[in-house]
């Protein structure tokens, strides 16, 4: 009972980087929830007279082309960016994981069909597929979430399938059958809890990628529309000002993006250590 907690503490202590990652994650969640209430300026309030001001004490991150406070916008954007990625990953994880587990357990036709579906999705460069899906189903934030979920599905399905297939013939699964458990219970009640640790690692690693994808889509104009504050679209708006030297419009949202992705990637590595120390990179 105390063992996992003690192990967690051990990993944190011996790995300050992981500890940093978890702290940053906590900070992001906090900003996501409380951000809009604690920012100094209204992220949508434009003051044309104060446009394109470099960072100063009044505006920590400077102002953008219509005089909005970049700092407030970056903080406010945390919620939307996190929401998009988390919902997309959650959908991928649940659906992809379930399909993969079924496929790995049953084999045969289920496996073949799922394999074909996954192969078809992965036959496209994934970002391009997301572009196509959003273009086809309409340029809304919901569809960005849907597209991101679809392109992330194969990762979870594949991991779930592999992990279940490895355990399918293990002695304890046979023993569970001998003890009178039905196949459904064995799969979802016994095997799935066993594969949750590697799936968790996959989530952390994948979340960073989902954030990058969503931001990339909004960078090229899909999903989020101005004046909504979102990191990708803010970088896109700031891009045209880079060549004239106004770096702060694009830099700060970009840094925020980078920090978010970095945090999740570090967390993924840390979780991998927690779960399976033999597999450290």
């Amino acid at each position, binding site marked *: 009972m105390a063992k996992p907690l003690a192990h967690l503490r051990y990993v944190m202590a011996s790995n300050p980087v992981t500890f940093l990652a978890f702290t940053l994650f906590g900070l992001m969640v906090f900003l996501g929830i409380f951000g809009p209430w604690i920012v100094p300026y209204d992220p949508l309030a434009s003051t044309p007279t104060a446009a394109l001001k470099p960072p100063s004490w009044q505006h920590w991150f400077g102002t953008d082309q219509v005089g909005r406070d970049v700092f407030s916008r970056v903080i406010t954007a945390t919620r939307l960016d996190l929401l998009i990625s988390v919902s997309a990953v959650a959908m991928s994880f649940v659906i992809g994981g379930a399909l993969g587990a079924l496929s790995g357990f049953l084999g045969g036709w289920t496996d073949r069909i799922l394999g074909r579906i996954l192969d078809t999705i992965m036959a496209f460069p994934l970002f391009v597929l997301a572009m196509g899906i959003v273009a086809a189903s309409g340029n809304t934030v919901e569809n960005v979430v849907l597209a991101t979920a679809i392109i992330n599905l194969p990762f979870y399905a594949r991991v779930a399938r592999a992990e279940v297939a490895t355990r399918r013939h*293990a*002695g*304890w699964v*046979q*023993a*569970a*059958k*001998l*003890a*009178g*458990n*039905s*196949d459904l219970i064995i799969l979802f009640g*016994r095997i799935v*809890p*066993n594969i949750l640790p590697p799936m968790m690692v996959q989530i952390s690693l994948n979340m960073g990628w989902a954030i990058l994808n969503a931001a990339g889509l909004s960078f090229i104009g899909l999903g989020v529309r101005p004046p909504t504050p979102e990191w990708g679209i803010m970088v896109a708006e700031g891009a045209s000002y880079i060549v004239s030297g106004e770096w702060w419009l694009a830099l700060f949202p970009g840094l925020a993006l980078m920090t978010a992705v970095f945090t999740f990637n570090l967390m993924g590595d840390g979780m991998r250590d927690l779960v399976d120390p033999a597999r450290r990179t």
Partner: protein
Amino acid sequence: MISHPILSVRNLSVEFRTRQGTVNAVNDVSLTLRKGQTVAIVGESGSGKSVTSYAVMRILDRAGHISSGSAEFSGIRLDQAPESQLKDLRGREISMIFQNPRAALNPIRPVGQQIADVLIEHSQATRATAREKAIEALRRVRIGNPEERFSAYPFELSGGMCQRVVIAMALACNPQILIADEPTTGLDVTTQRAVMDLIRDLTKSNGMASILITHDLGLAGEYCDNIVVMERGRVVESGTPHELFLHPRHPYTRRLVKATPHHAENLKALLADTVSPVREIDSVTSERSDSHQSGFAREVSPPVLEVIDLRKEFPRARTMRDWMRGEKPPPFVAVDSISFKIFPGESIGLVGESGCGKSTTSAMIARLLDPSAGSIWFRGKDISLFKTSEFAQGMLRAKLQMVFQDPTESLNPRTTAEQAIADPLIHLLQITDRREIRTRVKALADQVGLEPALLPRLPHQLSGGQKARVGIARALASAPDLLILDEPTAALDVSVQAVVLNLLADLKERLGMAYLFVSHDLEVVRLLCDRVLVMRGGRIIEAGPTKQVFDNPREEYTRELLAAAPRFLDGVPQ
């Protein structure tokens, strides 16, 4: 005349840096090896026997280092020599072979080329002559068709052949010392003998000295002049096989000698003096004469299991050639229409080498696998008619249970011992009252000698023997009439095996169960089973009472199998 020692290990200690601190894997170990001599280092898992030889060869893992002591070879201090000098010595003067031969070879390089690499490295051949010499080396290890085999890849060769290739690599430059680390583990019994004989012949003909590292005392006794026994990193005793077997001094050695099944008269004899059998009352009657008598009485009652023409085929994948010819390849017949009976209270041994179909047979009988044809009559019903999924929930499931080979793999890593044992109570016997479950679990644990304090533990917190007991308790939970045991002690240390085997015999007597004991280890079968069935290529080629089959085998193959088992102290007066 005592020849000069060519390898002298004195007070060697090896430490490893781990997360939990420094671990002493080897502590103050000394041994001497003379020219032409074969020394065995015997110990169970964790004894440090392999680490000692890795230290001598200086191929320890990065986390390990020699903390004190010395290892001297022909005047050279191996523990202090620079890497460049050691590189010269390895392969040329001192060679080592490992277990798991296929993994020991580079999977994408032709095997002959790997031998040639060694020859070229030690200047025993040039690029031009290397191929020829490599083929010669392959011939010396008795690989047929060496010219063709030169360009074969490891995945195309059997385990035994891969080990021969590894031996060829090791002996290519005629070293003075050969260290063999568990060279026969994982190989079939007949292949084991072939490999050990090969090693012995080659080392003798070259005048080499060799060190054999093994957990099998019988193997050590047959092939070695001197045995060093290690326990937990220390040498506890050393001497000739004669001395150790007849007059063991250290209690660990005594326990090890007793636990080795060869030449044991009965199961009880396997147990060390200090370990008592599980139950004193209802003493175990595992004398073979006894069980033979009661076996005769039992034959009058109807069999608890009858297998008639049981058959299992697996479809083969089509190769390109089949596809072009428009043919379907014939299926692979794993079990070829076998028939036999098991009577109540009997213990039947099903023996054979890997691939003979014994595991497939046991899986079909346990109804974890559907047969292709034939019938399985259990307690008057043909259970082959049920589909696997139906049987899982049926009434008869409770009466037919199984104990698995690898105790680690047979327990759900996330459930406690108590939950594992309670599983069949909840799902098969449909008991819902939690207190009753608790009581029953405790009773079962008691029956198998598992301390109640261990019940809330997870599998990784239990030892191999404890996990085996949990598996047995779980199988007993539903009071089965027939218990299928698939190599239940193969993964256990010899001393633990002795205890578990006695437990199994004890339970059988007390609970009146029948056993189907699947194993490749003939010695264990000899001690535990009333009748034995010998399988080969999917067929039962010989069957009969154990004593009869072992003393007077009819079939050539059975004779081969029996001869392949190591003969500890052959010809030594007892």
